[in-house]
């Protein structure tokens, strides 16, 4: 909902004619990722905050294996992100008349960076659910961790839209490395924050 509202606001105020043709690939990539990241930050912490608010977090801690909980929440968040991208990206392309020269690379970038968004924020969500001032804290903690991923994704989407130098999909590889490191380290660190 937040995502669609932002998208409408952006397309309404900017439109597809304000931006010069040469600037489009870069600025559109920036806009798209700002919409995606901020709508993700507004929703992803729910996975753990909901458990804490319902009082079910502790029962879960008493009965379930920590890594199983983490993987469950991670897949839930990834599903959410997949749905978000499925709705927002086609709408964005349609409304902004976003021309993409290399759709395969573009899609791979969206998928890998989407995975990265989930991988980087799930463990943070587990921490902030047990803290005060959750909403603000979630964005404050997640944003520095997501910044390298966001920069990579913007660069990659721009490259895919322009369609030059796409050999090897360098940004996709960086994003995948990010996903792997974040998931492995989260699996390692999650039991520590879960069993406190």
């Amino acid at each position, binding site marked *: 909902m937040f995502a669609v509202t932002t998208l409408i606001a952006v397309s309404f105020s900017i439109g597809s004619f304000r931006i010069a043709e040469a600037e489009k690939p870069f600025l559109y990539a920036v806009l798209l990722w700002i919409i995606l990241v901020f709508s993700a930050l507004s929703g992803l912490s729910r996975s753990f905050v909901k458990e804490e608010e319902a009082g079910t977090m502790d029962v879960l801690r008493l009965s379930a294996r920590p890594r199983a909980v983490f993987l469950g929440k991670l897949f839930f968040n990834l599903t959410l992100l997949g749905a978000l991208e499925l709705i927002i990206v086609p709408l964005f392309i349609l409304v902004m008349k976003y021309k993409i020269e290399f759709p395969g690379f573009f899609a791979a970038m969206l998928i890998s960076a989407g995975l990265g968004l989930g991988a980087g924020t799930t463990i943070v969500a587990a921490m*902030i659910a047990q803290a005060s001032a959750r909403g603000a804290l979630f964005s404050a903690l997640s944003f520095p961790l997501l910044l390298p991923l966001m*920069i990579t994704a913007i660069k990659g989407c721009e490259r895919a839209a322009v369609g030059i130098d796409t050999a090897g999909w360098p940004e996709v590889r960086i994003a995948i490395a990010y996903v792997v490191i974040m998931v492995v380290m989260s699996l390692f660190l999650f039991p*520590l924050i879960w069993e406190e």
Partner: protein
Amino acid sequence: MIYKVFLTIWMAVILVAAFLYTEAATGFPGETSRILFFHVPQAWVATLSFLLSMIASCVYLARRNVKADDLALSAAELGFLFCVLATVTGSIFAKASWGSFWNWDPRETSIVILLMIYGAYFALRSAVADPEKKRVFAGVYAILAFLTVPFLVFVIPRITASLHPEDTMNPANPGMDPKTLKVFLGSLLAYTALFVWMLRLRMRILRIEGNRIEGFRD
């Protein structure tokens, strides 16, 4: 005590030498190149303390030793202080040399991210009431934040070319003036020693605060 006196004298010597003994490097407006003796050591200490904080966090998570967490927190606090100093001095230099306080040069970008990480770290610590939980969360976050560093190194330089002077001000460069090099290394050492002194002081304060709470029951 001796350490403190010695450090004071040494820093005074470096300060005088930085302005009187060395000559301003060519290619910079006026005397601005003298920033080298202050700005670079500050940035170095900021980086060092980030690294130290991360290592101490790992030790805390493995051993659950409160002292390790005190070290992680003290290092983070001092790192934040030196980070701000480096940002401010760098910004003044940027205005004098490149015409604007802020240019989103790669190093400026990375120091902003570092400031954000420190901010998030302190926010997290203040938002968790249970002391044991707070320490663990802070440690976990420090490690996660540190993990993003290799990506930043990899990602950021590709966006914009650096405006940072590399040749005349790089101590690894053989072309550096020997006088400058001497004072620069002296200053680096002075700043590191200052950092160690402040770190120990901060840790002592944390320990005394901890003892005072422990003493509550007596």
